[in-house]
């Protein structure tokens, strides 16, 4: 167990690699109750959320639909990444645990002038059930509004009372995230495990998200990084040109300059592991540099993979130094595995 921003969480329950594989092949369950859940109610909840985050919640058509977004500061840096849901009562944001303090401060400081109320839902827990067999596991659990999930696509959800379920996740597999009252979380965990879900810790959560090419706050992005530099440009909506949102001006200026570094994926052929903080070089002379934001061993590919921020390039090969040796890595899109398939 480790202290993860005040939460006692397991890195692994047994073998991290076995836990990783259970999500790719079968079904895993994660206790992600450390995530911060914020509800917004009031007549101007929509206006407020549209101003605060980079993606546009007007694209959410039905209740319980969700979208991925950044929350930007005035200089266009990423304060956090999050999922925003349209809810029957207004909007719900699920933000990171590591950034909870900064997020609350930032969100609170902009409430003034809007008819909106922010409520932190620490009375709710969150469990993620992920993997090709997750639908079957979910169907064996009681008290979930699964009949309402019929015909729902990814990023959509359903709610029944205080129990909310959405087809979202952080693994690159089919999966569900369930938000429910703290008192009911243990029962759902036990039911899901009895139905075949394997408990998965933070270690495999990280290797799964990295194979899927999903960002981790503090690694791929922070307050000094633009969405354009961490493969999040797509989560900034400019469709409604009349919409003002925080960080818009700085984002547009950087977009126009068109010379920002970009996030790429790296695949290492040799038996070594690229890790966060390693330098990467676009030339063997080591003059054009980038930085590894996250790197690990991919249990699915049995090779090292990494995400790196590098100057724009057409090159297919770069170099990284591991224990004094210069190793070649293949450059590709910042994603490796989707639904168990190699997509790099």
């Amino acid at each position, binding site marked *: 167990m480790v202290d993860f921003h005040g939460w006692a969480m397991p*890195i*692994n329950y047994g*073998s*991290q*690699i076995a836990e990783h594989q259970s999500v790719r092949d079968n079904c895993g369950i994660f206790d992600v109750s450390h995530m911060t859940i914020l509800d917004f109610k009031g007549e101007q909840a929509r206006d407020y959320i549209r101003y605060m985050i980079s993606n546009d919640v007007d694209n959410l058509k039905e209740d319980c639909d969700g979208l991925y977004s950044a929350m930007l500061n005035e200089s266009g840096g990423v304060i956090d990444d999050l999922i925003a849901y349209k809810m029957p009562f207004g909007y719900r944001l699920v933000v990171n645990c590591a950034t909870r303090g900064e997020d609350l401060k930032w969100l609170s400081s902009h409430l003034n002038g809007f008819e909106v109320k922010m409520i932190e839902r620490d009375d709710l827990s969150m469990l993620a059930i992920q993997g090709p067999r997750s639908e079957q596991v979910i169907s064996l659990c009681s008290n979930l509004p699964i009949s309402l999930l019929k015909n729902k696509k990814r990023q959509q959800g359903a709610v029944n009372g205080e129990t909310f379920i959405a087809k979202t996740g952080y693994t690159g597999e089919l999966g569900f995230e369930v938000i429910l009252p703290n008192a009911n979380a243990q029962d759902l965990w036990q039911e899901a495990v009895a139905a075949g879900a394997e408990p998965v810790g933070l*270690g495999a959560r990280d*290797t799964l998200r990295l194979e899927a090419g999903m960002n981790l706050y503090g690694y791929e992005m922070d307050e000094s990084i633009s969405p354009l530099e961490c493969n999040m440009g797509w989560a900034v909506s400019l469709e409604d040109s009349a919409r003002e949102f925080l960080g818009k001006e700085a984002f547009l200026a950087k977009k126009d300059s068109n010379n920002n570094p970009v996030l790429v994926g790296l695949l290492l052929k040799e*038996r*070594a*592991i690229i*890790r966060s903080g390693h330098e990467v070089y676009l030339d063997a002379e080591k003059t054009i540099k980038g930085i590894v934001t996250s790197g*690990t*061993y991919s*249990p699915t590919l*049995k090779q090292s993979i990494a995400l790196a921020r590098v100057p724009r390039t057409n090159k297919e090969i770069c170099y990284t130094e591991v*224990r004094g040796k210069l190793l070649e890595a293949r450059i590709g899109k910042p994603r490796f595995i989707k639904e168990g398939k190699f997509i790099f």
Partner: protein
Amino acid sequence: MSESPENLKYLSSHEWVKLEDDGSVTVGISDHAQDLLGDIVFVELPEVGQELGAEEEAAVVESVKAASDIFSPIGGKVTEINEKLLDEPDLVNVSPYEDGWFFKMQPDDLESLKSLLSSEEYTNSQES
């Protein structure tokens, strides 16, 4: 609770050494070490014939979590390496004292084994 067999000698940096009947020694890492490292995914071994000094870097293990150097417990010449570890690095996790050995060496001086830790001393060194 991790085990540390009594017939072996240890370094506080988690390597174990076994004195074989023919006077050679076998080197590996302790159960406690493999437990700390988690799933081991790559192993780099020394070369046969390589001369190693006491506490010189001899091998590298990479687990999902971190890379760690493995030190030669005593001075000597590498006589054999466990090539099985290149394809099955998880042998170190599954069988740290048997199938998961790293290399064998002909020691320069068997006396130096005496200065290494006993099982009890090693266990105590990990608790303090």
